[in-house]
Structure formats: C-alpha cells, structure tokens
C-alpha cells in the first residue's frame, strides 16, 4: 500500500523538531487517564453501594492526579512559572484547554477524596466543619465524574495538535485509544484494590476499555500511512507490543476475575501496565517520527504528487511553481 519512499533531505537532518518532553509527559498521560477513570468508577460505586470500590476510586483518583500534576510541573523549563498557564484561556491551545479542564476537575476530585478520608475517621472526631463532609460527599463525587471524561480525552488532542508526524496523523482515532486505555487502567486499579464482590462493573469497564483501545489502535495504524511505521520500530515498537500483550491478557483475565481475588489482582496489574506501555509507545513513536525527515517529507510529497496540496482556495497552483 505504502510505496517504497524515496525522498530528498538536507544531509538527512530532521525538519520538524521533536518535543522537548521526556518521561514526564507519558507518565502524565497515564496518570491523568487513571484519575479520570477512577473518578467515574468511584461515582458509580457510590451510587450502587460499593464502598470499597468507591474508596479506592476516590483515593486512586487523587493520588493519580497528584502524580500527573508533579509530572506536568517537572516537565516545564521554568517550573516556577507554572501558574502562567492560568493567565489566559485559549481554545486554540489544547494545553490551555487541558489546564482549565484540570482546574475544574481537580478541586472536586480533591474534595471527594477529603470527604472519603473524613468518613474513615472515628465518629467522635467528625465534629464542627467536618460534619459538612457528609453533605458535600456525593455531589462532589458526581461533579468530579462529570469533569473526568475530558481529562482522559483531551490528552490525545494535546499530542495530535502538533507537526509531529505520528501524532498528528493519528488525530481521528487517538482520543478513543486514550479513553479506552484510561478505562482499562482505572478498572485495573479497582480490580487490584477491591474485593471481587464489588468489582463486577469494574470488570465490564476493563473489558470494554481494552476492546475500545485495541480496536481503535488498529484502525489508527491503518489510517496513518507511512507514519504508522515508528509504532513498530525500536523502543516504541517494544512498548506497543508489550501494551497489546498486557492489555489482551489483562482483559482476558478480568473475565475470570469474579471468582478469584488473585486473578483479579494479576489482571488489574496487567491492565495498568498495559496502559503505561500504550502511553510510552505512542509518545516514543511520535518523537522518533519527528527525528526522521522521511515522515515529514514523504506524506507531503504524496499529497503533492496526487495533485492535492493543502490550499485554502481553489487548488490552482500559481505560475511561480514550475513543473519540475
């Protein structure tokens, strides 16, 4: 399908630059997904009377959110200026949009984790303002769940809205891969932390999330043309193969996890690890695609050869483009 591409470059040097991001960013993608999925699970567990699943979801969400915030700030060139993100709201910047999504989500996820901790205190300590916790509890949890899905989905736009060939070319399917991965990972956390009597919904969420991730990842690769190559090569290739194996194994295991706590813990761990591998694999593939001019030049040349240059008006090349 993809022709063996010959292309010209300037001494083989890259054209676009890879992002300056390191392991912080795929960690952030993973942790954000776990936080979002966990808030959804916690809200469901709260509404259906599953106290352990609720507690692990709420505490898991705030722990994952903390990891993601530390990773995000650590990644900055000037961490002390983190708050500069809050001086504007820009819809053209997925990072700005994401900052505001987190700003909406974070306080509710934090509040409901706090009320969960208050509920764990002995009754005689729950005095004064702490009595408010019981009132705030469910509304805060539901609001956290409402703002959670965008937390899981926006990170796909964050990567795709770049000139990095293997990220941009994936923009149609990547949000589905990421929310699937988030569902599988957070359900995995539920399986690890809760007794089998409460994890029925988490097991269904795990299987659904894993299936969505695997199917959409497959479709994504088919739509990416030559820029799918980095997903199969080198470090990125190893991450992606590990992701697939772990996610399939974890999903299969979670079908049986209703009978055995041990199977549930192993399956849940596999799902969490699979999500880590997916995030690192897609991150690495993008970085590699930016370092090789082939992935920038060849798709653009194919577009030009097909007579379809990107133009806003009628596709009439001006006289200044000679036919060479």
């Amino acid at each position, binding site marked *: 399908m993809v022709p063996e591409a010959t292309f*010209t*470059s*300037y*001494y083989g040097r*890259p*054209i*676009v*630059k*890879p*992002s*300056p*991001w390191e392991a912080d960013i795929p960690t952030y993608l993973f942790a954000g997904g776990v936080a*979002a999925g966990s808030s*959804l699970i916690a809200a469901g567990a709260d509404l*259906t009377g599953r106290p352990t699943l609720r507690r692990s979801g709420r505490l898991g969400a705030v722990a994952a959110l903390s990891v993601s915030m530390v990773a995000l700030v650590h990644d*900055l*060139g000037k961490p002390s*200026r983190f708050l*500069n993100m809050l*001086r504007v709201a820009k819809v*053209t*910047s*997925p*990072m*700005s949009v994401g900052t505001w999504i987190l700003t909406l989500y974070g306080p509710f996820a934090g509040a409901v984790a706090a009320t969960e901790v208050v509920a764990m205190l002995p009754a005689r300590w729950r005095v004064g303002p702490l009595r408010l916790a019981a009132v705030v509890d469910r509304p805060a949890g539901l609001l956290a769940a409402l703002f*959670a*899905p*965008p937390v*899981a*989905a926006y990170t*796909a*736009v964050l990567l795709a*809205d*770049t*000139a990095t060939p293997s990220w*941009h070319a994936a923009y149609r*399917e*990547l*949000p589905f891969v990421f*929310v699937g991965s988030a*569902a599988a990972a957070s359900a995995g956390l539920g399986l690890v932390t809760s007794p089998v009597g409460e994890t*029925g*919904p988490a097991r*269904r969420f795990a299987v*659904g999330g894993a299936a*969505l991730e695997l199917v959409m990842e497959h479709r994504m690769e088919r739509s990416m043309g030559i820029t799918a190559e980095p997903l199969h090569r080198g470090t990125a290739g190893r991450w992606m193969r590990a992701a697939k194996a772990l996610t399939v194994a974890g999903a299969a295991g979670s079908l049986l996890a*209703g009978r055995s706590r041990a199977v549930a813990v192993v399956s849940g761990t596999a799902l969490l690890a699979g999500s880590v591998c997916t995030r690192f694999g897609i991150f690495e593939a*993008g970085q590699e695609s930016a370092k090789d001019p082939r992935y*920038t030049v060849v798709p*653009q*040349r194919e577009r030009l050869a097909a007579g379809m*240059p*990107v*133009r*806003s*008006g009628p596709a009439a090349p*001006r006289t*200044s*483009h000679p036919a*060479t």
Partner: protein
Amino acid sequence: MAGKHSLFGPVDPAADAGYGEDHPPRMGFFTDTSICIGCKACEVACKEWNDVPATHFDMLGSSYDNSLSLNANQWRHVAFIEQAKPLGEQESGLRRQAVDLGMPGMAPPDGASAAHAGQDDDAGRPDFRWLMSSDVCKHCTHAACLDVCPTGSLFRTEFGTVVVQDDICNGCGYCVPACPYGVIERRKGPEGAKNVGIAQKCTLCYDRLGAGSTPACAQACPTQSIQFGDVDELRERADARLAQLHEAGTTDARLYGHDPEDGVGGAGAFFLLLDEPEVYGLPPDPVVTTKDLPHMFNRAGVAALTLLAGAALSFLGRRR
C-alpha cells in the same frame, strides 16, 4: 476577533489578532537565495544584536554549514548544498572564463569527480552548483506555535510578526513540536546564558522595527539576498524576480511560502529557491496543525462521551 479564516486561509494576521485599522503594514522578509553568497553575515549580525549565545558550533562535514539548523541559539541559519548540476541557463558571459574555484568537493581533492567539478563542459558551463540559503522563522499567517502557546507568551505583533515574551514563557515546550518548520526551540544552554529553559526564536528584530530600523540580518546582508519590507510589496518584488529568472532560463527557480492560500496562510518570511524545498531542509507542503483542531476537539468530545457512557453501562449491568 475570531473570523472565518482565523485558523486557516488568507487573513491579515494583525487585524485578526485584534489590532485596529491603524496598525502598521505587515512586515517580513523576502530571502532571494539565488544571490546568497553564503557569507553568514546574517547569522553573525543576528547573534550580535539579539545576544543569542554561540553554541552548537561543530565541524559537521556538510559543506560550509557548521551551525546545524535553526534552533533556540540559531535564529538565522545558512544552508549550503553542493550539487553536480549545471547552474541554469542564464548567460552572463562570466561562465566562459569559469575556472576551478577549489570548491569543497564530495570526493578527495585529487578524485575524478572533484577534478571534474568546476571545469567547463562543452557548452562552456560548469556542471557544479552551490546552493546557499539563509533560513529564518517564517512568521506564519497561521502560526502553530502561537496558537498552541498556553500562557500567551507567544503573541502577534502590530507588524503581523510572531514574538516570544521572555518573561511570560514557562517553558512548557508545546510550541516546539507544533512548528511545521522546526524553527522554535526551548533553550537548553549554555549555562549562564539568559532565557535558558524557555522558547526562543527570531523576533524579526521587534525592537528594531519599533524604532523604524531594519532587522539586523537584512541590514548586514551584502547582496540584498535578505530583503526586508512591507509583505505586500515584497510579494510583488518576488514575483518580478521570479519572472526575470525564468526569462533568463533558470527554470528551477520557484517561490516558497509567498502564497496566502497555502497551508500556513502564507509566510511573513518567504523565499526564492532554486530546487525543491526539502533540498534546503524545508517541508514541501507544510500545514498549520490547528487547521484540524476543530475536528480534533470533536473527536475528543465523542471519545469523552463514549467513556462516560461506557462507565454508566458498566454499572447498569447485572448487579453482583
């Protein structure tokens, strides 16, 4: 100020950014590479004026290019390309006396190809050409770096150019992968240099423009390969120069980045090239990534709803 063409298509970038009717005309560069002599005066003048630290210097073995690329510490970059191709058909009379200039060849000095390069062929033309081009930030009409900046550090000036505010940037690095030309970069060093950790690139000498001066690179260019001025006028000049070269038989000549209908809405800094863009390390058909942003947010919205529905369905199933 969002309009129909705010993300893609021809637009006056300063007006689109909210400057009033009285904003100055859009300023930019037309870099005519056909008369670049590779002197690197632009590189030096840029570093001197903008206090850009000298790093990345290395003997790279790529003709006379030892400054690698445009990056945080290199806001003008002269590319050198040696090609075993005739210089075009222009008849200047000079060619008849062409002698071996001792150009750096692609083979050992006494090798056959090097000996051949520079010598006249039957028609009296050398079968060697040396392309030189001073690259710079394109100051796109639709600048992806500016679009994705989450702090507002990158902004559109009244001259339609794109500039980083050093005291606002928090070094998130998002502009770096967003640029379709690989221009902007987070400064990594050297230690002790100013603005380490934040995004850096050409400002089109915003400070000089404000004082009515010409940018340092254009001022220093001894051949007027780098021409500075009103973008509309530069486009006319570029069209005229191109027609002149075509008439003279240099059919390789083409303009790059001048077309307001192109993937970045036309560049404020555009070029006359003598070969395909990728030969110079430029993307052949770049497009601003935010052109697809509405579609991306739609897909993410559907994905988010899918996640919410999936969670709800998981809990609605059998109760056990």
